[in-house]
């Protein structure tokens, strides 16, 4: 017991208590924002986590991640309408659909880097948006969207908002835990190395294509998971879930939080949602505000809020040590 306690230096306490801190954080903002918004925030955080696996850890910026969110959202809705009203089965179907789209599109997408990667994602997102808006509008309800009806489960009643909130928070912690283990593993180190220098990783004898493909699949699957949960919360799906012009939201959130950090993703998700929910009602020209904020982040705070805070602590620690 004594040795364990000495191991828990200040840094390690943060590391060990991250999940309780996330839960506590959401429980703190719950009474401030109300249950609907807090659930919304938590779902968006899952989406930011999924995006950040590709962007922050593997260094691939996707400009069409709404496609994978929308895949989950539409799969849940269509599954509940045509196959079974069981929400848990519908979420599993959405996860499968998210993985499938990653498997199919991955080989085309992950071969590219940088700008091409961003734009090919965007192009596919555009195609997906067209498919649900026009081509399959008979099944998806086109621009009007469609409602999702879930049957009641004996132990989980998703008609109750508190249950939805608890479930979403559990899912967020689950996604966080999974991605934390994933990024801390040797595999995670490998994808970070791909971000730094892919040629060298290839030189070490790794087939980087497979690693990139699998990471891409994980990202699409978790994104679809977030999409599925949003439908659980809203009960309604519209083409805005797959709208390419909304791609910037998740990028901005990941940037605010600081790319390459899971903690940061969650902070970024909450901060972005707070900005977009409340700022838009106070500032009429909020798009312009967002633009200037992005420029400031890009030119001044590349490490994001979380990186800025950790940097501040590191500097203070250095000052104390001296």
């Amino acid at each position, binding site marked *: 017991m004594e040795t364990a306690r000495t191991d828990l230096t200040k840094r390690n306490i943060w590391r060990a208590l991250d999940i309780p801190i996330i839960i506590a954080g959401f429980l703190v903002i719950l009474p401030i924002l109300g249950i609907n918004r807090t659930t919304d925030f938590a779902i968006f955080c899952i989406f930011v986590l999924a995006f950040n696996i590709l962007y922050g850890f593997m260094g691939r910026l996707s*400009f069409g991640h709404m496609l994978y969110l929308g895949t989950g959202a539409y799969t849940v809705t269509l599954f509940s309408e045509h196959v079974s009203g069981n929400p848990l089965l519908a979420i599993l179907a959405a996860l499968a659909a998210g993985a499938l789209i990653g498997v199919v599109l991955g080989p085309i997408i992950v071969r590219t880097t940088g700008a091409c990667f961003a734009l090919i994602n965007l192009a596919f997102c555009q195609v997906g948006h067209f498919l649900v808006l026009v081509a399959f509008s008979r099944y998806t309800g086109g621009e009007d969207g469609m409602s999702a009806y879930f049957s009641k489960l004996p132990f989980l009643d998703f008609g109750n908002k508190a249950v939805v909130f608890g479930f979403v928070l559990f899912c967020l912690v689950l996604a966080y835990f999974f991605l934390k283990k994933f990024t801390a593993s040797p595999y995670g180190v490998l994808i970070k190395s791909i971000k730094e220098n892919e040629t060298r990783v290839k030189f070490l004898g790794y087939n980087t294509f497979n690693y990139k493909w699998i990471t891409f699949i994980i990202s699409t699957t978790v994104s679809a998971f977030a999409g599925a949960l949003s439908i659980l919360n809203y009960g309604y799906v519209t083409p805005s879930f797959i709208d390419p012009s909304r791609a910037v939201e998740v990028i901005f959130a990941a940037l605010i939080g600081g790319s390459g950090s899971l903690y940061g993703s969650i902070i970024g998700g909450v901060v972005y949602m707070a900005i977009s929910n409340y700022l838009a009602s106070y500032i009429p020209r909020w798009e312009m505000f967002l633009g200037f904020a992005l420029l400031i982040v890009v030119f001044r705070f590349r490490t994001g809020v979380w990186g800025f805070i950790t940097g501040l602590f590191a500097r203070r620690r250095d000052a104390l040590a001296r």
Partner: protein
Amino acid sequence: MINTIAYGLTIGAILYIISIGLSLTFGTMRIVNFAHGFVYTIGAYLLISSLPFVRDNFFLGAVLAVAAVIPISYVVERFVIRKLYGVSIDYAIIATYAVVLIGVDSIKWIWGASPIPLSDPIGKDISLFSVVLPMYRVLIIVLALVIFGALTVFFKKTIVGKIVTASLEDKDAVKSLGINVDKYFSIVFVIGSCLAALGGVLYAPITSVHPYMGMMVLLISFAVVLVGGLGNIKGTFVSAFVLGLVMAITGRYWGPAAETMVFVVMGIVLIFKPVEV
């Protein structure tokens, strides 16, 4: 059918005029310039604002609009793009996207968000091969051919063009000759932006003018650039006309799918010819 092809060639011509600037910034600086779509939009809006001053003379209005874009694109280049040389490409994408957000919001602030229609500035028809075509569209195609010729001469004969062509091949080698490459890049950037604004001006009478008109065109131009090859001037020319035809022919059979088809073609091309960036 000939009408459809003619329409496709018109779209191809406009796409070429817009894409050339994108292709050059992409090829020289490796920057994905989202602000290009904003410049295209502001070109069309400046045309609308300048028309009353020149007694609705479309030609003079177009010249004024394109000239007014020069300072705007210079500001974008000086304060955003120039700071992005050598920075990670993600930040370049995000910073130029931020420029789009600011620009589009300013447009909504100044001109309002509702679409503004413009009529065909010439209004006469011309009969070619027993098909009646609007004169305006034929002129656009001719203009694109003229611009292609002028740019070919520019890149082959003038010293600025030669430097830029050489930097497309090997930037460091050109730098080591003591040439300030960045200065020439900013010239190319302004030329490209002017051409984008010209594209917006030319396309405005065919569709209506609205703040978000640049986004879709920008995506299609990216497809043109990727299919044609980055910084490849001839490739951009060919792919612009091919994709313009793809759009027109798809649009003839199934209107809403026209733009999506472009991305399908792009996807197929990229499967067989991956781009190394």
